[in-house]
């Protein structure tokens, strides 16, 4: 017979329950129920996992818009409720949460996701259950009826193209983190660059958990790449920047504007002075001239964001705000009916959002025209800087 000491057993029980609580708490945030009958919008953002940085920002941005709308009396007299779920950066988790949002929460539409990794597996469910989603994502395949986005895909590559041309670059080397992102870059972004007349001399992949990519840089250098396009997000992009500086790469470094977060500045450290990135006004809202029509709105959003999260807003904060804005405006026109919301989204014209102007049609579900500016990282002052 094995005897278990009572005290030991109770210690073990306490610890086990503590662990369970910690695990459960990390899975779901508890959300309060509103008294009135609100219009429900699902918020599908990754707030844990590898996409947590951009996902948390986007969620906070979306929440700010919903708060603004509700404090101004809601939409058509009804409050809007954002039912946020965390897909943990895992597509399979996203699928089951999406089903829950649609079937149990009976949401009218979905805001999010903020990542193509997740959105690719949500697409069939959205179209089968006929619920529209506005994410801040690139579309991997052809446009599907129920997916919309606030992410300027062709705009980003055009922005890189302009930047490269202004530095007399012809040969571009690409490093991307393997998986869905690399696939996306190869399928949708590189063809645009090639069409703009650039030569892609190499396309290298690495894993998000890697700690050194100098071998890949050496290979791109041997192929004559004049500009390194770091097609990664967050820590992986910071790693490429650090290694780029470390090997003293004879060329130019460029990465997505989506990497402009406080965490990126911290990660990239003193290697940041080589970083050029896609230029969004939200990154440099303080430095915009007073004549800029968006300055006041961006500043008030940034103040609100700072109050809510204690951080400066990054690009994804504005994306998240814009997704929710796009949805709420569609609901204003169409009411809470799922099908009508979809039609209203498709018909959106000249919608002013934080990042730019949205014009959608049956063949264009993205339609975001970004207001571009030139942005560089200023390491000494730990901020992003407007280049005139």
């Amino acid at each position: 017979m094995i005897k278990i000491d009572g005290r030991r057993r109770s210690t073990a029980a306490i610890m086990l329950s503590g662990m369970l609580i910690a695990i459960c708490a990390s899975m779901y945030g508890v959300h309060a129920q509103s008294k009135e009958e609100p219009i429900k919008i699902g918020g599908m953002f990754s707030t844990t996992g590898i996409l947590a940085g951009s996902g948390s920002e986007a969620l906070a941005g979306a929440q700010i818009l919903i708060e603004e709308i509700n404090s101004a009396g809601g939409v058509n007299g009804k409050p809007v409720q954002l039912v946020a779920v965390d897909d943990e950066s895992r597509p399979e988790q996203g699928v089951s949460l999406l089903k829950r949002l649609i079937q149990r929460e009976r949401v009218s539409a979905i805001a999010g996701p903020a990542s193509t990794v997740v959105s690719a597996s949500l697409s069939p469910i959205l179209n089968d259950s006929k619920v529209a989603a506005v994410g801040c994502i690139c579309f991997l395949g052809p446009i599907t009826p129920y997916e919309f986005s606030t992410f300027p895909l062709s705009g980003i590559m055009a922005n890189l193209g302009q930047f490269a041309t202004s530095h007399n670059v012809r040969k571009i080397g690409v490093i991307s983190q393997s998986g869905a992102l690399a696939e996306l870059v190869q399928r949708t972004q590189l063809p645009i660059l090639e069409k703009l007349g650039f030569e892609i001399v190499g396309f290298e992949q690495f894993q998000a958990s890697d700690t050194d990519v100098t071998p890949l840089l050496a290979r791109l250098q041997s192929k004559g790449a004049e500009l390194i396009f770091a097609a990664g997000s967050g820590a992986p992009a910071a790693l490429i920047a650090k290694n780029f500086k470390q090997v003293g790469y004879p060329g130019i470094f460029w990465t997505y504007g989506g990497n402009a977060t406080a965490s990126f500045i911290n990660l990239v450290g003193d290697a940041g002075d080589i970083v050029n990135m896609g230029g969004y006004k939200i990154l440099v809202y303080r430095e915009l001239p007073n004549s800029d029509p968006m300055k006041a709105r961006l500043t008030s959003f940034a103040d609100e964001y700072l109050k809510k999260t204690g951080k400066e807003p990054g690009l994804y904060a504005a994306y998240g705000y814009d997704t929710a804005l796009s949805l709420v405006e569609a609901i204003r026109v169409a009411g809470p009916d799922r099908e009508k919301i979809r039609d209203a989204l498709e018909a959106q014209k000249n919608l002013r959002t934080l990042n730019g102007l949205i014009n959608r049609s049956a063949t264009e579900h993205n339609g975001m025209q970004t207001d571009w500016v030139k942005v560089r990282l200023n390491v000494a002052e730990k901020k992003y800087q407007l280049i005139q």
Partner: protein
Amino acid sequence: MNGFWLQVLFGGLTSGSIYALVAVGLALIYRATRVINFAHGEFVVIGALTAASLVDPIGLPLAAAAVLGVVAAGATGFLFERLVLRPMGDKPVFVLILCTLGCSIAFRGAEMLLWGKDPLRLPSFSSGTSWKIGGAAILPQALWVLGVTAVVMMIVGFVLQRTAYGKAVRACAENSTAASLAGIDVKSVIAWTHLASAALGGVAGVLISPIAAIDFQSGLLLAIKALTAAIIGGLDRMSGVVLGGLLLGVIEAFSTVFISSAMKDAFAFAILILLLMVRPQGLLGLRRTQ
């Protein structure tokens, strides 16, 4: 194109030195208890994040923050043994291993609540600019990791082989009942070994933090990589563990460049499987005759 080959080698050594340093702590616990501690990566994370958060928002000098990071990791390891593993009594090793795996998930949740989801990093120990050797660049921080790994390997190897404490550790691993009959305080030996191993994890965390972006999720992956490295080299010898780490890093670097990054892990594991078929005790491991 010599610079190119050398750069690939340096890249591999940088990753490899990280695996090696993490693997030393893992191997130490294995030597004392025959348990593979999957929670070991969490001590690395706790060391790194404690030190990084002490430097950035709080403003402690780097050296003090690094020491406190190591202390925090060591203390967590000590408590982990006292509160989790010791109450399990003499359950089979397999149960203990599963328990460490479960605890690594619980630790991960706690780390997320404490430090948030963003990776944090420490500034480099010496200047951030790289050294050029033969047309290839290596970060001074990677040399720090390599150097400390070598020193740690020698100290741990010496302590295990030549001191009374080391003999006690080995005796516990061989047969804990016999060891306690011979007058060894098995419980205290195991407690101290856990403390030392977790502190070594903390050292690894503090050292690799300027190179690797460590966040709350890095731990388990580090532990698994370190375990692979240790098995390649042979868990029984500290020199084998370190060799295994460096080799794994270099194999990964070359397979990334010449095959594909997506195949990197597959390639590393294929080599591991081949090696286990030919030399199950690892490259430098001792053959057991039982």
